[in-house]
């Protein structure tokens, strides 16, 4: 170890803080000048952290589900009964659904309906709740090997739209939730699909903006995504209209945004959001299939 004289060492110790402060200010400036730097650093860190979080989050989830794995053992009998009854009911619904599907297909055939391409999807565990104070996002661990560019993919839990992927690495994807301040989702309200914009407010329920003045959204009306702007595929369930204490319409999300455990990420080809800041490298990847599609 290098031996330094005591006054020199003291001077050095006194200088570290101002020097680090200058360095940090420099980082702020660099971060402002090059927005992709923060994105790439963040997705690199997310890739490192996702497997570690997955290891820790596993036991935590086991403990949380209905009082833990051991707690479940005591009410197995009752649960089985419940599940059997539910299963019987669902079997009835399945036959109804099959009949309706057949009818739907027949009608589509009559209308010469062009089916939408099935999106590629990945299922991933939500391993970390990495929101900021003014941002809402979760980290999803995705199985390695899928080389689809997930930036812009729509994230849904079992019930409805939860958000959109803003950053994706090889093993992780960061999903910006619909409650985030920067989230804007074009939606259609009610059976007629009256257009509006759902804007995140950092609170639990996103606000509804820009609905037609003569046609206020009805309390309890279903809110679905709309294809306006090409950001989202149409018809994905988002939530239900509700009027808050200030009598402003908000959307009660169907997705359980505070307790997200499993998310499906749908990567729609050529249907990536234009509103998402897409890095230059992704933008060129995106342009290629589009031009191919035009050539056909």
């Amino acid at each position, binding site marked *: 170890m290098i031996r330094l004289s005591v006054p020199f060492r003291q001077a050095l110790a006194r200088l570290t803080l101002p020097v680090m402060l200058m360095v*940090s200010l420099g980082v702020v400036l660099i971060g402002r000048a090059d927005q992709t730097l923060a994105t790439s650093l963040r997705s690199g860190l997310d890739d490192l952290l996702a497997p570690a979080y997955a290891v820790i989050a596993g036991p935590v989830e086991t403990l949380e589900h209905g009082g833990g794995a051991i707690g479940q053992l005591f009410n197995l009998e009752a649960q089985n009964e419940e599940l059997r009854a539910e299963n019987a009911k669902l079997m009835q619904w399945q036959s109804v659904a099959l009949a309706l599907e057949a009818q739907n297909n027949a009608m589509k055939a009559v209308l010469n309906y062009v089916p939408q391409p099935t999106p590629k999807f990945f299922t991933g565990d939500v391993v*970390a709740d990495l929101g900021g*104070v*003014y941002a809402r996002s979760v980290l999803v661990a995705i199985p390695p090997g899928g080389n689809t560019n997930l930036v812009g993919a729509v994230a849904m839990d079992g019930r409805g739209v939860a958000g959109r992927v803003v950053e994706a690495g090889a093993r992780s994807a960061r999903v910006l939730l619909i409650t985030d301040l920067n989230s804007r989702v074009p939606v259609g309200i009610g059976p007629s699909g009256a257009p509006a914009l759902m804007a995140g407010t950092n609170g639990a329920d996103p606000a509804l903006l820009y609905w037609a003045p003569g046609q206020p959204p009805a309390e309890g009306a279903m809110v679905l995504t709309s294809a306006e702007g090409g950001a989202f595929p149409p018809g994905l369930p988002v939530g239900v209209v509700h009027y808050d204490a200030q009598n402003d319409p908000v959307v009660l999300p169907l997705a359980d945004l*505070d307790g997200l455990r499993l998310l499906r990420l749908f990567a729609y080809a050529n249907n990536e959001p234009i509103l998402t800041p897409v890095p230059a490298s992704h933008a060129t990847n995106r342009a290629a299939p589009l031009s191919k599609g035009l050539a056909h």
Partner: protein
Amino acid sequence: MSVQRRPSIWRQLDAASRYAWPAACLVFGLFIIGLPLGLPGQAVLRPAYAMACVYFWSLYRPSSLPAPVVALTGLLLDLLGISPLGLWAVLLLVLQGATLASRRHLIPQFFLLNWLVFTAFAATASAAAWAAQSILTLSILPLFPLAAQLLAAAGLYPALAALFIRAHRGPAAAELA
């Protein structure tokens, strides 16, 4: 060089672990707060925890939390939560600077006064973060998370201090103060 005069390997390990404890505790805590525990306002805890740690260790054991570690912690905070890169690094360093500058006056005081001073520092840093992010995003960010962060910081500090004081009073801690 005589071997006897050097402390044994265990003694060295002990001293090293005590030296590294504050920084390790700080960084590890930030990761733990990221677990999907489903607590309401969990994200608010992260900066509050970082501020409480930086204030406490800068006050009682500044050599264990050198400025580069604080800067890296700030960067980590910016990357984990979504805030402009480097913002919390600057704020935490300013917090550390302010704490070190007032250290002489603060150490002999009662805990209650230290707590109040921390709350004032945390309020300043949180308000600065709010203002900076509002300016950078060109919009007025909601004030509720700011208040929540401040409450979290004020509430977290006594609990953390109670834990850290025990760690600080270990036998090998004296020479590090």
